[in-house]
């Protein structure tokens, strides 16, 4: 490890420093500074959303413009705790945008948007998710994961007087802490077998052949760790919490937790599996990479199939999006299973496919949830059947939700098409044609339930059709900008974003 240089190490955590400053500013604005400033009055707390969003999005843009890692500066920083590379930056940018957009779409949400602590807790969770995407040490990995999830437990149960919200918080907490304990046991075993906590040092130790006695303990640790990650990305069979938490939590929180914690966990999962168990790790004649790739492929198949089939039967739109997000985790896992291809160039393409998919998924899912927030604040319902006639009540909202759903379904020109295309292409390149076929069949099933919602909005007759739904100007702008981003990501934005992700993938795989 190089000598510690404070100034050279700073860029590696520049976005996190921005987030800490944001959190302190928010706290000061909300509760005031003794003897200096009394804090915002209750009626003006909504302005904090703008402060949060502006600060997070500025942090993202400045990090890309000023602190983008170059091949010379890529490497381990802060005593090997953080790896500074393009992949981490791509994920940090999407997480920061997710936080910023969530703050904006939370403004008018009853009991959430006018509370200063909501923005503060969300910024702390964003901080954890940013740290996850660069974590390169078991200790850092664990602390960052908990920094993301503990605030999310609070956020899920944020509406204390709403029974559904507190129930969602409790379920998330119980399942989440159980999953972290299992993950942690796996990490402790991994530490024991290698005597190291740095991911890259563990890989070096394992591939040096020093640990050659028996592959079984390492595989057991790997399985425990995959169970823990499976919970975080809500892959079947570790998905129990997802529908209940998504339905009960305040909608802006659902939006945030469906994208930020998922994106962070996928970044970490990729880094962990590819850094600690690359193809060179062979224990007792067994290639560990084949083992985890098979396991991940199996998780992908069950997650996609289960998520899509159960989503068909849902009547509540938030619950439907929960099952859809389980299925989306399944599609993304296809890419991870495809990384094991022996040729490193196709491996890099698979990593880039996952990154692109998470990038477009972040914007698409937030867009869908933005519409649901406006709709349920105006009408007080989240049932799909109540969306009937939305195209007459509010044509813009219907159009925006249509774009989001088509993107989730993978219909061009929305971004989802290329997301799925890259993932399935990676699977074919890695000789996993069967996995790609399962994915395509599942996309057809998924298309059905997304189209049903669109049909309900445009064709079905609703009982309140003469009552238009008002959209405040803030929501109009946010929904407009994000839907333009979703369409751009699927047209002219594909090449630059994919190239950026590919650069990140090369940095991760060292090719």
């Amino acid at each position, binding site marked *: 490890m190089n000598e510690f240089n404070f100034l050279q190490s700073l860029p590696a955590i520049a976005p996190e420093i921005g987030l800490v400053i944001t959190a302190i500013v928010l706290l000061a604005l909300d509760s005031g500074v003794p003897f200096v400033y009394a804090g915002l009055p209750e009626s003006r707390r909504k302005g904090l959303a703008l402060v949060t969003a502006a600060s997070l999005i500025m942090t993202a843009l400045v990090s890309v413009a000023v602190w983008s890692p170059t091949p010379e500066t890529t490497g381990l920083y802060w005593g090997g705790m953080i790896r500074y590379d393009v992949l981490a930056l791509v994920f940090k940018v999407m997480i920061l945008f997710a936080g910023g957009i969530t703050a904006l779409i939370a403004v008018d949400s009853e009991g959430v948007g006018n509370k200063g602590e909501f923005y503060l807790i969300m910024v702390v969770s964003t901080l954890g998710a940013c740290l996850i995407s660069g974590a390169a040490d078991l200790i850092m990995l664990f602390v960052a994961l908990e920094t993301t999830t503990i605030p999310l437990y*609070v956020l899920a*149960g944020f509406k204390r007087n709403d029974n559904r919200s*507190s129930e969602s918080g*409790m379920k998330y907490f*119980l399942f989440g802490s159980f999953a972290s*304990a299992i993950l942690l046991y796996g990490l402790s075993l991994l530490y024991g077998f290698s005597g190291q906590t740095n991911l890259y040092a563990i890989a070096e130790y394992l591939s040096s052949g020093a640990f050659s006695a028996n592959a079984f303990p390492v595989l057991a640790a790997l399985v425990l760790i995959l169970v823990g990650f499976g919970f975080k990305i809500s892959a079947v069979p570790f998905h129990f919490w997802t529908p209940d938490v998504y339905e*009960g939590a305040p909608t802006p929180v659902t939006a945030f937790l469906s994208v930020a914690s998922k994106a962070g966990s996928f970044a970490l999962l990729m880094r962990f599996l590819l850094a600690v168990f690359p193809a060179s790790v062979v224990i007792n004649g067994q290639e560990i990479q084949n083992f985890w790739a098979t396991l991940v492929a199996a998780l992908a198949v069950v997650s996609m199939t289960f998520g899509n089939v159960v989503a068909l039967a849902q009547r509540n739109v938030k619950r439907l999006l929960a099952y859809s997000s389980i299925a989306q985790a399944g599609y993304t896992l296809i890419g991870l299973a495809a990384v094991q291809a022996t040729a490193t160039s196709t491996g890099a393409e698979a990593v880039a496919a996952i990154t692109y998919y998470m990038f477009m998924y972040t914007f698409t899912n937030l867009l869908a949830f933005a519409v649901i927030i406006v709709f349920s604040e105006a009408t007080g319902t989240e049932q799909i059947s109540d969306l009937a006639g939305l195209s007459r009540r509010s044509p813009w909202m219907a159009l925006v939700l249509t774009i989001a759903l088509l993107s989730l379904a993978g219909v061009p020109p929305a971004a989802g098409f290329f997301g799925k295309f890259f993932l399935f292409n990676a699977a074919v390149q890695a000789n996993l044609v069967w996995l790609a076929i399962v994915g395509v069949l599942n996309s057809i099933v998924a298309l059905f339930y997304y189209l049903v919602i669109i049909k309900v909005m445009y064709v079905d007759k609703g009982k309140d059709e003469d009552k238009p739904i008002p959209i405040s100007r803030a929501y109009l702008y946010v929904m407009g900008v994000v839907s333009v981003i979703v369409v751009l990501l699927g047209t002219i934005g594909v090449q630059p974003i994919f190239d950026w992700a590919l650069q990140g993938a090369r940095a991760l795989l060292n090719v």
Partner: protein
Amino acid sequence: MIPLWMYLIVAAAVFAIGVYGVLARRNAVAILMSVELMLSAVNINLVAFWRYLTPQNMSGQVFAAFVFVVAAAEAAVGLAIVISIYRSRRSVVVEDVNLLKG
């Protein structure tokens, strides 16, 4: 000196008891206690591995310290959520908390 594998067996046993508690108990506070048991098993593992394998390298002990800190934070948040559930329903039994299902 006590060999390393004995510590590992104890840790595995404590961990298994914790898992059983989480799956079998119906009271949210008891589930929380079982999770704490699982975390203690992790700490036994970490400290034993550190002492026997790499006593010159502090990372195992540091890891254990972080597990303590995070477990405390987790318990604080968890108990707060359980109290808010208890205030509205007068029960912390997981089966009574069943508004959301499908």
